């Protein structure tokens, strides 16, 4: 883990891993989508259950990514791992993206099943709060010039926001909600028929690998951005005109 703190080692690892991960992700998406569209319709929801194959993996990822960011925040504040803040910063836009997919696909699933696009119940509202948290973290990173201060502030906000994760998970048990309770991760086993469960699990794996691939690529970009900022400062000190162009372009 600490060996990966060396940016050159991380860049070399990313260069080797990303093409294979991208291929595996594409293959899993192809298999998952084919199985999902071949799966039988639900006895109550009919074919609209097909929205589950994108909504549920996106929902799982929205909280999983926040968990990754919380771990990276501990890495920044406690273990002071050199790449922890890059991992946290790189994950926030991806978390926002998958949470957006979760909210919109859930809304499009809710209209035909519940008769409404949106309701202010505990599950939907807590996921909306998660989406706003992601946007707030992205804004925080952009609004503080000093990377060290930005990393610490973002890490503290991320850790404060973890209180929302159990609320999201247990909201359907603690309050009366329109959203259905958990049907896969249950103490007494999944309540979904295997013909619907397998495509869902494969799509969940495909979404997870997609996040892993994009996260590695985004951390690599953060390392390059820091290298660019450092070189720009050196060039500026030497009076190079190009450094002013790059600084004006936002190389930070």
């Amino acid at each position, binding site marked *: 883990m600490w060996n990966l703190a060396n940016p050159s080692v991380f860049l070399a690892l990313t260069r080797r891993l990303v093409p294979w991960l991208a291929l595996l992700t594409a293959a899993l998406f192809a298999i998952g989508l084919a199985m999902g569209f071949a799966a039988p319709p639900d006895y109550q929801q*009919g*074919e*609209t259950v*097909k*929205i589950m194959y*994108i*909504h549920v993996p*996106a929902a799982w990822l929205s909280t999983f990514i926040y968990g990754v960011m919380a771990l990276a925040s501990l890495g920044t504040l406690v273990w002071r791992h050199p790449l922890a803040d890059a991992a946290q910063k790189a994950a926030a*836009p*991806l978390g926002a*993206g998958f949470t*957006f*997919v979760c909210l*919109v*696909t859930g809304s*499009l*699933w809710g*209209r*035909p099943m519940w008769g409404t696009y949106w309701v202010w119940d505990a599950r939907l509202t807590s996921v909306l709060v998660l989406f706003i948290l992601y946007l707030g973290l992205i804004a925080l990173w952009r609004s503080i010039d000093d990377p060290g201060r930005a990393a610490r502030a973002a890490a503290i906000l991320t850790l404060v926001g973890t209180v929302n994760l159990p609320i999201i998970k247990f909201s359907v048990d603690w309050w009366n909600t329109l959203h259905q309770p958990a049907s896969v991760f249950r103490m007494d086993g999944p309540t979904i028929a295997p013909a619907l469960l397998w495509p869902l699990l494969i799509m969940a794996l495909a979404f997870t690998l*997609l996040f892993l691939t*994009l996260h590695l*690529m*985004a951390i*690599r*970009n953060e390392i*390059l*951005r820091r*290298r*660019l900022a450092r*070189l*720009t400062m*050196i*060039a500026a000190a030497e009076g*190079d005109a*190009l*450094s002013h162009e*790059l600084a004006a*372009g936002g*190389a930070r």
Partner: protein
Amino acid sequence: MLDIPHIGFIVAAYGVAFVAIAAMIAAVTLDYRQLTAQLQRLEGRRHPGDGA
């Protein structure tokens, strides 16, 4: 296919997911291209003989 109830909602959900995922992939890839191009320009300026 078109006579499936609520097909519009299913197509819209998959469409939104596709566009959002494609946008994330494009953003990360374009960011990488832009950063490497800027780095090459800056490093080329600092070490003009390296590329020859």
